[in-house]
């Protein structure tokens, strides 16, 4: 891991795609479909618009301060002291996000496949794997994730294609039986999850080759591709599970379970389980990388390696205590969109400051 590794915009777009798609396949269909039901596509659209604003804000900062992370952008616009103060909620968000990712992997395994194994085993293994990967550096991460992205997206496609026999297009009707409020609720939830979590890219974009310009196109393309994947996944799930969609926490996993093709190919949950873990691992790695870089640069520590292990340890231990019971987890899910929104405030403030400063220049 070195401070001066730079990725091409295409590689960064791939990282954005795997990061957002990882969220898409685990929780998003659930939060997108639970309230809005058949009007999910409207909620999907609103959530995407919300995410696009964040993305454009982060890309604007890259255009103004090429090759700078959010910390450096803040230092150049509002000064070091104010940046440090403003980024406290952002750093808390990164730590909580890494803890919740470890927790979500552990709870997924202990509630679906390996019920007797303690949570600490899964959380610990994923944390350890993330540390080892982050130590390899952003260039190694991007090379490694190119391969995993194929597995991730490939397995989603396989499950959706094999589940074709279970689709009932009539489940897509009626649209909006309870009006517009549930749609807004779903947009709030899914916008807060998938398009809130990807605020980690405010740090990661600093490792992108953005001096020549034209870097925005592949990034926006990756964002739109994820948007489309989310629409297709949600549509297929509601066509397959219909009225029962609300009953499942992991709808794509449930869809994989009911696959049956001529009694030859049955129950594809292992395929989707594999991609869920690959996706969460990639997300955990990128979050840990961003948390490490953010804290290291905020305190102006020369080596990016020094704080990596204690930060990963903090995230791992936090994942073991962060949720005490199911009721608490529901409360976390409820307030998470607001946590991500709070984390986005410093990014917007820095962007506005950069805009004002740019205009003041003769």
């Amino acid at each position, binding site marked *: 891991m070195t401070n001066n590794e730079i990725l091409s915009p295409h590689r960064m777009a791939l990282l954005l795609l795997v990061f957002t798609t990882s969220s898409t396949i685990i929780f998003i269909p659930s939060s997108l*479909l*639970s*309230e*809005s*039901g*058949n*009007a999910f596509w409207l909620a999907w659209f609103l959530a995407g618009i919300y995410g696009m604003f964040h993305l454009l804000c982060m890309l604007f900062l890259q255009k103004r301060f090429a090759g700078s992370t959010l910390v450096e952008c803040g230092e150049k616009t509002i000064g070091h002291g104010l940046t440090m103060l403003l980024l406290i909620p952002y750093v*808390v968000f990164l*730590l*909580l996000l890494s*803890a919740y990712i470890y927790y979500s992997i552990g709870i997924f395994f202990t509630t679906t496949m390996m019920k007797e194994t303690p949570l*600490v085993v899964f959380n*610990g293994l994923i944390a350890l794997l993330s540390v080892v990967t982050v130590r390899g550096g952003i260039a190694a991460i991007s090379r490694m994730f190119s391969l995993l992205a194929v597995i991730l997206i490939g397995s989603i496609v396989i499950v959706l294609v094999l589940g074709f026999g279970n689709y009932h297009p009539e*489940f897509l009707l009626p649209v*909006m*039986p*309870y*009006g517009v*409020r*549930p749609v*807004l*609720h779903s947009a*709030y939830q899914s916008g807060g999850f998938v398009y809130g979590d990807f605020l980690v890219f405010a740090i990661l974009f600093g490792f992108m080759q953005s001096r020549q310009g034209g870097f925005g196109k592949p990034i926006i393309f990756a964002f739109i591709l994820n948007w489309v994947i989310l629409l297709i996944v949600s549509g297929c799930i509601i066509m397959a599970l*219909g*009225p*029962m*969609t*609300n009953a499942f926490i992991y709808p794509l996993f449930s869809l994989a379970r009911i696959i049956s093709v001529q009694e030859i190919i049955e129950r594809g949950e292992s395929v989707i389980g594999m991609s869920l873990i690959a996706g969460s691992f990639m997300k955990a790695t990128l979050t840990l990388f961003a948390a490490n870089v953010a*804290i290291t640069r905020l*305190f*102006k*520590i*020369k*080596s990016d*390696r*020094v*704080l990596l*292990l*204690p*930060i990963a*340890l*903090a995230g791992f*231990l*936090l994942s*073991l*205590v*962060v949720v*005490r019971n199911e009721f608490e987890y529901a*409360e*976390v899910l*409820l*307030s998470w*969109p*607001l*946590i991500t929104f*709070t984390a986005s405030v410093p990014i917007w403030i820095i962007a506005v400051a950069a805009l004002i400063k740019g205009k003041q220049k003769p």
Partner: protein
Amino acid sequence: MLARALLCAAIIAAILCVDWRTLKKAGFKAKLIYGLVLAYSIYTGYGYISRHPLPNLSDIATVLLREPAGLIDKSLKANKSASGLLIGKAEL
């Protein structure tokens, strides 16, 4: 409890062994921040060992945002969920 305490101690010992050389070369500020993050980890780890977690970052976030999140949830939720209606229709 003993097993959990031993696990945490082993992990911290392993981390210190790995980082020993890097820490020796690092400046005072890096060592201080390292110590603070490790102290926070031990504080968090105490909750795991004793099964009685002390107030943490997640609690602060939840306390601060619980009320507005609840309000948003309440104001946007339909009286009966959309899928509830669908289940009713499917049963009929």
